[in-house]
C-alpha cells in the first residue's frame, strides 16, 4: 500500500480551500506571510462560503467530527492544526453562517519540524483550472516584499508577463 501524507503546506492549503469550495465559496483568498525577523510564517485562508455556527467552529478541528452534508470539516483542519503545533505555532478559526470562514495557521519559520511550503504552483493550478467560476487571490509577502496573483486577471488576459 502506498503512503498517505500531507508533506507540504501547499497540500494543506489545497485541502482547506477544497473545504471552502464545498461550502460554496465564490471568492477565496490565500495569504502567506513570511517574517524572518520575527521568525514567523503565517498562512491565512479566507472564503465567502456558507460559514459555520459557533458550536461547529468549536468542534471543527476535532478529527472525529464532521458535517458530511456540506463536507465543510473533517480530517483536514486537524491535520493542518497538527502541522502548525509541531512547528511551534497554532491554528485559529473564525466563521459566521452566511459570511464565510477564515483559517489562520502560524509556524515558527525556522522550526526544524516546519513543513516546506512546497509546490504552490500545482496547488493554484489545480484550484483555478477546476473551479473557473471561483475568484482566487494569492498574496505572498516576505520581509516587506509582496506579490499577488489574481485568477480573474489570469483568465481575462489582463495579466501581463513582467518585463525583467
Amino acid at each position, binding site marked *: *500500500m502506498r503512503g*498517505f501524507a500531507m508533506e507540504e503546506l501547499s497540500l494543506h492549503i489545497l485541502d482547506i480551500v477544497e473545504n471552502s469550495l464545498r461550502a460554496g465559496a465564490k471568492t477565496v483568498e490565500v495569504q502567506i506571510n513570511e517574517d524572518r525577523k520575527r521568525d514567523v510564517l503565517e498562512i491565512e485562508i479566507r472564503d465567502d462560503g456558507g460559514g459555520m455556527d459557533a458550536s461547529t467552529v468549536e468542534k471543527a478541528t476535532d478529527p472525529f467530527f464532521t458535517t458530511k452534508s456540506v463536507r465543510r470539516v473533517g480530517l483536514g483542519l486537524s491535520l493542518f492544526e497538527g502541522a502548525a503545533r509541531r512547528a511551534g505555532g497554532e491554528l485559529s478559526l473564525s466563521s459566521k453562517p452566511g459570511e464565510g470562514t477564515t483559517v489562520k495557521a502560524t509556524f515558527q519559520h525556522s522550526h526544524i519540524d516546519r513543513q516546506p511550503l512546497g509546490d504552490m*504552483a500545482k496547488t*493554484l493550478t489545480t484550484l483555478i*483550472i*477546476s473551479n473557473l467560476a471561483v475568484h482566487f487571490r494569492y498574496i505572498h509577502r516576505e520581509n516587506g516584499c509582496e506579490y499577488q496573483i489574481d*485568477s480573474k486577471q489570469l483568465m481575462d488576459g489582463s495579466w501581463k508577463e513582467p518585463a525583467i
Partner: protein
Amino acid sequence: MAKLTVEDLQKIKERARRTTLLREGAGRAKVTVHMGTCGIAAGARNIMDALLEAMEAQDVTDVILTTSGGAGLCSREPMATVERVGEAPVKYIELTENKIRKVFMEHVMGGRIVTEYALALGSEQTH
C-alpha cells in the same frame, strides 16, 4: 522557500485559457479527480497535474477537468471518475501518474474502459 515563477503563471494562464475555451463548447468527457483530504494526501494533486500534461501533449481541448470531495473510500485513493458523453461514469482507484495517463489515452480518448484500474460503474453524490 519555493516561489512561484513567471513560467508557473504562464502555465496557469495557458491551462486556464484552454479550459475556458472548452467550457464554452461541448466536452467529449469529464474527468473528476477526488480531492478530499485522503485523496490529496495520497497524491491526487499529481494525478490532476498528469492529466493536464496529457491534455497539453495531445492538444486536447474538449475534456473537462474538475474536482470533488472524497468518495468515501480513503484506502483506495487517489481516485478519479471518467464520464464520457452518453456513457456510464467509471470510477478508477489507486491511481498513479502512469495509470491516469493510460486511463486518459484509452478511456477518455479511445472509449475503452481500463478494467484493471476500475472499481465500478456509477457515481456517488458528492454535493
